[in-house]
């Protein structure tokens, strides 16, 4: 009897360990997405790391429900954006949203032109409200409008209309602060 319990325990722990390994590999391969979301929704390195961890935790908790039910990217975007927009409790106070802080740390380590542009784009996107930031990020990562709309719970037409307006806003801001 005891042996049976012990055997079950062993099977359970080894299954859990292999599931954890599989999950860690998945996160390692896709951490760029989580890093981008964490960077877009925080204003300090400490918050950025905390948000990364919170997203990983939420992904782990929903890992069973994901398996086979949807595309990896759809599941990851949903969980990452939902966590950043709705669940995450920041430690530090956020910056005022309508001011462009061009001295922001995003600029500090960058040396070449492309990097500077990416950093400026991050800073400009961060001035947008939470939901709009999500639309822009998914658009830049080439998600189809159908997926963008489904992830947010809006219609495809609304996502398209909003993105067209956002393109103009971003263009103006980028040219203004370049």
């Amino acid at each position, binding site marked *: 009897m005891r042996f049976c319990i012990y055997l079950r325990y062993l099977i359970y722990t080894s299954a859990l360990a292999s599931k954890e390994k599989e999950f860690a590999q998945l996160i390692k391969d896709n*951490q760029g997405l989580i890093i981008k979301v964490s960077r877009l929704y925080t204003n300090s390195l400490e918050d950025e790391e905390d948000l990364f961890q919170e997203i990983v935790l939420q992904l782990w908790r929903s890992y069973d429900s994901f398996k086979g039910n949807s595309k990896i990217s759809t599941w990851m975007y949903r969980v990452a954006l939902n966590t950043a927009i709705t669940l995450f409790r920041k430690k530090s106070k956020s910056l005022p949203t309508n001011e462009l802080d061009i001295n922001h740390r995003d600029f500090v380590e960058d040396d070449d032109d*492309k990097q500077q542009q990416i950093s400026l784009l991050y800073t400009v996107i961060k001035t947008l409200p939470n939901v709009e930031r999500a639309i822009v990020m998914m658009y830049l990562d080439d998600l189809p409008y159908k997926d963008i709309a489904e992830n947010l719970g809006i219609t495809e037409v609304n996502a398209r209309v909003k993105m067209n307006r956002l393109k103009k806003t971003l263009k103006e801001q980028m040219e203004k602060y370049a």
Partner: protein
Amino acid sequence: MPEFDLDSFKKTWQEQPVQQKYDHSAILEMLNRKSRNYVKYILWISVVEFIFFSVLGLFYILQGKESNSFISILEKLGARKTTELEGSLDNIYVVLKVLSLSITAYFVYKFYQNYKKIKIEENLKKLILKIIQFKKTVNAFILINIILLISFTSIFTLFIFYVLNTQNIEVTNSTLTGFIIGTIISTAVAVLLIWLYYKIVYGIIMRKLDKNLRQLKEIESQEF
């Protein structure tokens, strides 16, 4: 800077060098860390609130001191303590306590049910609406508690007048005014404190959710 075009910038964005910050062991370590999120925060605070209200109710049932303190108020107003009076007071207490505990039990069930409905992998709008629904269960519980508090106070005040009337006791105007004002003020202060507590505890999270929901609704209302 040359003219900026978001579509031509997509490639640069997608190829941005994102540092591979975390390795296998760092990711596995994260799985054992504590989650720091608003839903968990609402859950624990609400659990403490449910326990507080339930324990308070049970405490009074087990102690049974309420009726004595209520009789002492009646005696101060000049009423006589009779077995009939104690009997009817006990009956009122039993009804009110059963009612109050049944309401708490129902809300604990609803609260848990709505908590289980929150799924992080749903779309943003559904997630926000479900968190708001979850929070509404707590709101309704608090509202019912405030209504119960006012109803209990009113029932006992009416009962006092009924006893005074049946025992043919005339109360001086100043005592009566003092009693009524005292009851109203203490009830109002209790309601105000409860309201203030909820504004402070849930204010930030509800503001954040409402703001995000407003943004989604605004996007939905935009036309070509």
